[in-house]
Each structure stands twice: as structure tokens, then as C-alpha cells.
């Protein structure tokens, strides 16, 4: 792996590497509609451009997703955040963190980057109002280490930072 990937992260396992290479090939052949993978030499961090679906609140807007893969991908979920500026959405914090269960508790190794992307686009598309989560400011303030909010002990993402 390239040395540019964050030092704190461990390099991808062999199986993760193999799977990501195949996912990338599959993506190039058959990318999910509305998404564009930005080519880099870093297999462990993908940057993906998302185009808001036509006819939704986010049509004609484009955003960037950053997907970081853990060493044990796909047994562990990748960390997915929106790069600045994150779309205004009731489940997306201003620091780009996304409140979406499949990225945490409901992750399954049968999912792929492509299926994550489709889920995120679907989440965007179903939004009826452009606003931040209610606890945005508190969450962003308390979230120092820049990690996506992982649910712990089954509590909701929002209540985790209530204490």
C-alpha cells in the first residue's frame, strides 16, 4: 500500500486488497448510476463523486464521499464520510459524518462500495427537507478524533453523545 495512507491505519489484509481490486474493476465496468470514482493509486481510500438524483432536493448538486477501508474489510465496514461541504440532510452532520445503519451495526460483508453508494444516494433522495440533524452542533463539537460515529451498545448515534 502507498505510504500516504494514514499512519494510524493498518494496511489492508490480503483478502481486503483482493476484494477491493475486484470491486474497483467491477465499478469500472458497471459503476452505480450517479457516482464517479476519482482515480488515485490508493486502494485503501476511495474518493467518490455523488450527483444528486434528478427530481430530488439534491438534483444538480454534487458531493464527494471519502471511503476508508479497514484492514479487515469486508468483515468490518468501511468508514464513509462526506468531504466538505457535506449535503444538508437530517442524517448528515456538518463534519460529513453520516448516520446510516449499514455503515455501522447493519454492515454486512456481502455489501460492496457500490451498494453503500446506492444506499447513500437513496438516503439523500428520500429527504424531504434540507437541514442538519438536530444535535449537529453538539455532535460535531464532541467528535474530536474525526471518526465516523459508531453506534455502541445498540444505542442510536444521536444518543451516544448525549451523556
Amino acid at each position: 500500500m502507498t505510504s500516504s495512507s494514514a499512519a494510524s491505519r493498518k494496511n489492508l489484509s490480503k483478502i481486503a486488497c483482493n476484494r477491493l481490486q475486484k470491486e474497483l474493476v467491477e465499478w469500472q465496468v458497471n459503476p452505480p448510476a450517479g457516482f464517479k470514482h476519482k482515480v488515485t493509486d490508493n486502494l485503501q481510500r476511495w474518493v467518490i463523486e455523488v450527483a444528486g438524483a434528478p427530481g430530488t432536493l439534491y438534483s444538480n448538486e454534487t458531493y464527494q464521499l471519502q471511503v476508508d477501508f479497514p484492514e479487515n474489510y469486508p468483515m468490518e465496514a468501511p468508514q464513509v464520510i462526506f468531504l466538505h461541504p457535506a449535503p444538508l440532510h437530517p442524517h448528515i452532520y456538518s463534519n460529513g459524518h453520516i448516520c446510516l445503519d449499514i455503515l455501522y451495526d447493519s454492515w454486512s460483508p456481502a455489501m460492496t462500495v457500490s451498494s453503500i453508494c446506492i444506499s447513500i444516494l437513496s438516503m439523500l433522495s428520500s429527504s424531504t427537507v434540507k437541514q442538519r440533524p438536530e444535535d449537529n452542533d453538539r455532535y460535531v463539537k464532541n467528535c474530536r478524533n474525526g471518526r465516523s460515529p459508531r453506534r455502541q451498545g445498540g444505542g442510536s448515534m444521536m444518543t451516544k453523545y448525549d451523556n
Partner: protein
Amino acid sequence: MGNKLGRKRQVVDEKYTRPQGLYNHKDVDQKKLRKLILESKLAPCYPGDEETAYDREECPICFLYYPSLNRSRCCTKSICTECFLQMKVPNSTRPTQCPFCKTANYAVEYRGVKSKEEKGLEQIEEQRVIEAKIRMRKQELQDEEERMHKRLEISSANVNVAVADVEYSSNAVAESSMSVIEPDEIVSSQDSCATPMVRPPPSTRANRDDEFDVDLEDIMVMEAIWLSIQENGRQRNASFTDVTSDATSGHYVAEDRYVSSPMGPQTGSSSSPSGGLACAIAALAERQQMAGESSVSSNNENSSSFNMLPGSRRFYNRLGRDMVSYSSAENLNEGAPDDDVAMTQSHGEWSIDHGPHVTETATSYATSVEVEDRGELSSVSQSNDLDGNLQSATDPIIPESYEEQMMLAMAVSLAEARAMPSGQSASWQ
């Protein structure tokens, strides 16, 4: 039963009764695993291949290829033994969910190599998925078109309101709002003698290829486009105050221009540098345009009632859509010579395309992208679905000079094609 016998005969090499090191397995009961594999309750731990080969199955978790895989009891999805071991977390109190269908109490069974029937069933399912995807795509295209349709309808219904808003904005926007009105009138005057207009628009693309079966309805639409383009180009020569006063005082003023204003400066511009056939056609088209002017002005009585004709609005919408599909279909291959005729045409077209959007959303820059997208979509769907029954659509109007109409149609599309890129930059100055 036969399957079971087959399984018992299968002798698994000892080395495939252990994990091959795909993962760093912790807490794996090696003895139990070996037993399960030898009893054919789990697939042997064959090393996975990176490349596919005949009769290999891909594990959907590790994406490696194996001679045979386990199947989940709930949804019969495949999984290799080593990935399955990763799924089953021994110390977890929670029952493991199936990674594919999320059913609780995930469990797998091993049935050996896939039978022909299973493979057949899988192929059928794959086929169904593909078909469903195609249906979805079609539905999306259709929805897109309907949305576009509605937008245009709304904006044409609100033309007067929109125009009032536009007064305060730039000259360019005011022009575009004018072009929203005009095609409506022109078309409605023709529409008043035309019978049912409920049919979907014919495919302009398919139409151009067969010269003998040119659809008259199509020609009408294109003529309307041409006229409005010419008119729009003329407006650009007018002063700002002229345009805005037109905008406020409504369509009668705009119509007067058809009669009173002489051919604008752009008439001479058919001497395009790209020359040749296109020039000749464009010249013809202009001749046609002059004839068209008189016919429009003679139809003025009809157009005054356009607001009451539901058909006219519908027709206008179709006009808009046709134009959109035009631009996307035609601008792909052609370059952008700075041809004056083409410039005015594209300017006109651009404005017509955008008039409704600009006035409706007021985010003019963003809409440009959207409209192009829509154009692509609608052109695709139209050419896919709608080239049937063109001929049945041709009764209402018989133009006096058929050949010239055809030439006009070609000229418009040619010029539009060449003009698209330059037109875009021009309208956002």
C-alpha cells in the same frame, strides 16, 4: 438421496479440512471444522482462485473462486467455508444474521457442486434481475420525462407571473421569457386546426433518416421552433426597454413583430464559413421562414384564444421536449464553427429551453446542466419507444411546399447541431 451417496463418496484431502489462511481465524474449533468438512456438512477449504474458470463459483464475500460453496438455509446464497467462519462469531450472544438476507440464526448447508438445475435456476434469476433493471431504467426515464413535462406545463401556465418577475432581471432572461410565450402562440394557431394531440411526440431522430416518410407533425414543430428562433434573434437586436415592454404588454406586441419587423441582420449570415450543402439548405430555410411569417400573422385570430385551448399547452410542452432531444442528439459529433445563423438559432433554442426553468427556479446556472441531462434522457426514451405510428399523425395540416418543409427541417437540425457549444457560451455572457 443420490446426492447423499455422492457426498459420501467424496473424499476430502486432509489439507482442505483446515482453513487456508484467508483470514486470521481466532477461536476456530479445528476439530469440529475437520469433522464437518469430512461429513460434507461444510464445503472443503479449497484455496480460492483469483481468476474464474469453468465450473467455479465465486464467494460473494471474498470474491475468490471455488469448486463448490456452502449455501445459506434462508436464501441459498453461496459462501465459502472460511468466510462463513468469519460470520459466525463464537463468543457473540446475539444470533448471527445472514449476511445476505439478514435472517436471524444464519446457518449453511453443503450440497456439493452445484447441479445443473441449480445453475439453470440461477441463470433464470439473473435474467430476471437484468430485466428488472431494464424496467427500472425505463421507468426512471419515463418519470424524468413526466417531471419535465410538468415543469413546462407549470411554467407555461404561469407565463404572465414569470414575465413580471423577469422584468427586474437581465436582458437575457427577459428575452428567454419572451420565447416562452411565442412558441405557444405560434403552435396554438396551428393547433387550432389540428385534431387530437394526445399522441406522444414522434422520434425526431429516426425520422430524419427516411426522407420519404417525413412526419408532418414533426415538420410543424420544427417550423415553430424555427420561427421562434428567428423572432428571438430579432429581439436581441432590440433595445432593452423594447424587450421589457414587450414582456409586460403580452403576446400581441410580440406578434406584431412578426409582421412589422423586416428580416434582421442575421438574414445575410447564411454565408456560413462551413459552406456547402448546409449553406444552401439554410438559405432555403430562410426563404421558408419568410413565408412562414406571413402564415403566422394571418393566423393571429386563433392565437388570441390560446389560453383556453388545453391542446395548445400540451403541444407547447411537446415542442419543448422535442427541442431538448434535438440538441442532445445532434450536438455530439459536430464541431462549433462561428456561424451567425447557427448562433441565433442556438440562442433561441437555449432560451426556450431555459425560459421555464429560469423563471421558475431562479437558479439559472444550475438548470443548464439539468436540462442537458433531461434532453439526453428524453431523446433516448423517445427513440426507443415512439417511432411507431408516425403516419397516422399526418392528416391535420398539409403544407404548401412539402420539399421546402423538409429542407427546413434539415437546416434547423443541422444548424442547431453546429451551434450548440457556441450557443451555450453566448447565453451566459
